[in-house]
């Protein structure tokens, strides 16, 4: 129970400027002016921290700032942006996992540094770094190993992006089967979890995966 005076004055001021309707309890959208504004560190520092050139950072920042003028993306906006690329399915779950992976500081917002550092790993890092990043994405609770449940969640989120209208039509067991095949491939010692070493080892042996890792070399 808050102190009465504080609460009272809050109510009064809110009613006075009419942004608060006591009947419905809704707050008018003036509070939308978020005064927080993240500014990234200097561009030179970012050039050092990442593998991007100055020009590339400029292009990235322009796009970033355009969509998020406040300087940081929250999860809603993140999901929104990502869903525009997948009109047919529901990409919110995968976007959520991505957000968790990008948000290295775990503060609910991805600012430009987080964004650009992760991008640098994915696009300009070594193959090991990329695989590490992917492992980190799958490992939802960041405990160093991927359990079956985590993988199932990830798989479901990927399959959700396909939406309903697919050919052949999506069976409910498709994600589960995929998870099974994944574990069969990756889990060497059959202990039910995939550790980072198993993951790296298997991926480095698989030509397809190695080749697809290089797909990102010229994205920017």
């Amino acid at each position, binding site marked *: 129970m808050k102190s009465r005076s504080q609460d009272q004055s809050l109510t009064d001021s809110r009613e006075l400027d009419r942004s608060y309707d006591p009947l419905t309890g809704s707050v008018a959208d003036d509070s939308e002016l978020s005064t927080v504004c993240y500014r990234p560190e200097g561009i030179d520092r970012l050039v050092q921290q990442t593998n991007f050139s100055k020009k590339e950072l400029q292009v990235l920042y322009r796009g970033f700032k355009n969509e998020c003028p406040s300087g940081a993306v929250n999860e809603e906006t993140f999901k929104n942006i*990502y869903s525009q690329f997948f009109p047919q399915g529901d990409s919110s779950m995968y976007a959520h996992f991505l957000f968790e992976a990008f948000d290295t500081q775990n503060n609910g917002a991805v600012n430009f540094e987080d964004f650009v550092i992760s991008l640098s790993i994915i696009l300009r890092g070594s193959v090991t770094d990329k695989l590490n990043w992917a492992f980190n994405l799958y490992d939802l609770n960041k405990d160093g190993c991927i359990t079956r449940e985590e993988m199932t969640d990830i798989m479901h989120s990927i399959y959700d992006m396909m939406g309903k209208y*697919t*050919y*052949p039509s999506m069976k409910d067991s*498709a994600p589960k089967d995929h998870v099974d095949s994944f574990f069969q491939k990756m889990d060497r010692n059959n202990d039910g979890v995939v550790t980072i070493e198993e993951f790296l080892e298997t991926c480095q042996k698989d030509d397809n995966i190695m080749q697809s890792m290089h797909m990102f070399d010229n994205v920017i």
Partner: protein
Amino acid sequence: MAAGVAAWLPFARAAAIGWMPVANLPMPVAPTEKSKRQDELIILNVSGRRFQTWRNTLDRYPDTLLGSSEKEFFYNEETKEYFFDRDPDVFRSVLNFYRTGKLHYPRYECISSYDEELAFFGIVPEIIGDCCYEEYKDRKRENAERLMDDQEDNKDAKLPNMTFRETMWRAFENPHTSTMALVFYYVTGFFIAVSVITNVVETVPCGSAPNQKEVPCGERYTVAFFCMDTACVMIFTVEYLMRLFAAPSRYRFMRSVMSIIDVVAILPYYIGLVMTDNEDVSGAFVTLRVFRVFRIFKFSRHSQGLRILGYTLKSCASELGFLLFSLTMAIIIFATVMFYAEKGSSSSKFTSIPASFWYTIVTMTTLGYGDMVPKTIAGKIFGSICSLSGVLVIALPVPVIVSNFSRIYHQNQRADKRRAQKKARLARIRISKTGSSNAFLHSKRNGLFNEALDSTEEEQRLSKSTSLLESQHHHLLHCLEKTTNHEFVDEQYYQQSYLDAGLQNYPSRSPSLSSQDGMTGTCCTRRSKKHHTPLPNASAATHMQPLTHTHTHQQGLQELSTIHIQPLSTSRSSLNMRVDEPAPLNCQSSQITTAIISIPTPPVTTPEGDAHLPAGPAHQNVVKVSAL
């Protein structure tokens, strides 16, 4: 894909790294920018005012003038800028659209000039943002109505080839079109007035003979009134029949309110004619005369105001109903109270609760006839409370109703408008969404993915029709397909295949899906290109003239189904074997032929294949022929 997030496409593509270790199939090759241009500033000179922006900003919307190569027509070599001889003020909004992805409509701008500018720059007005859309639509509608009004005035000029019936109908509806119509209008009006006055005067007591009591004029001058009545009714009947004849839709005319009023106005006379002999029903006949007063409603054809009032009452019905209901409640309450209060007193007029209703109503409306008055003290107290509350109960809702009515009326109009607009907008959004996914499916069909493979220069140029952005987006979607081992299809096809899967056990895809034809070609060529070693079923494949639709992107089941399009070049038959044949299929060939296929050798299945495909091994000798 909204170009506002075009800048985030690299991020979305990078995020696809999450699919890579999970995918079992190889990923398609990414489209590359052959000439990696540095982003440059371009100058747009619009009637002297210079705007500058990045080239990439304009490239976000490739199907507009500024985003496509159309702007090259406006390039000025000497000054190295693009010159447009258009309004710079409106251009501001246009350019902002590229920058922010939202198109705004400036309120001070004339709607038609704005429309013209949008048309010039190839921007569809439907994408105007929500903030400005309503204003835009309102202005546009106003403008259209204004133009339409002008047109209508012109249209009133008689068209030479209107039938007599149409002329008549127009004369009835718009009396100003011709003198005849005007004459008719005034004559009917006059007779309505005469008829109403007659009805009224009929009941006035005329001078009486000295020894008789006063009789109303109607009974004194029966014949005169009867003639007058007959004349009026004849005119009304003729008018009604003429309207009925001229009406474009007789059924609808007969159901309309005005025609019902007409009928009700003239019917009593005819019924009276039929029934004069019978004594018993003459009482009923008298009451029928009451209906003659409905003739006064015929004036509503002549008066616009009456019509508006009628419509007003109709639309305000719920408010009036509420007023009535609350009044009824109050009446019942007070009547009950008064009855029980007055029960004690002798010779009380309040004999029952319904009898008290009359007192309550008279008191609450502050009429106070005085024919019923309470005698007991309690009765008087409650009586006074009743009259005081009557003032409140009646006086309060009325202004509320009036203002309510006005507000609700306008609000309803706006809400309906918005609802209609919303539906249309959602439909448009859905269309653009499916448009983007359709774009992907479409380009799949056109085999554009193959441009990344060893295709010749010429084919690359041909397939440059999609922008780099689009091709990158499509590549992304394609990677997802590979990861999950399912393909995106459109709704139609999905329904069809669902149906088919249910219907038949052996693979057959409906032949009606000519839209999916291209996929076959793409399917097979891709596969054939990727796997240089012949597939176990490659031999099977070669037997197929047109390519199957049903084999998935895996070394899987090859089932033959109906034919689809037979590509133009017949060398396609050996396409599957010639692995390094250049890719892009001309699947858009309009030449469609039928072919009979024979099922090849029993297909080899893989475990995955079985899980996904709805059918078992292809049945031999299943031949399906269809002409598309």
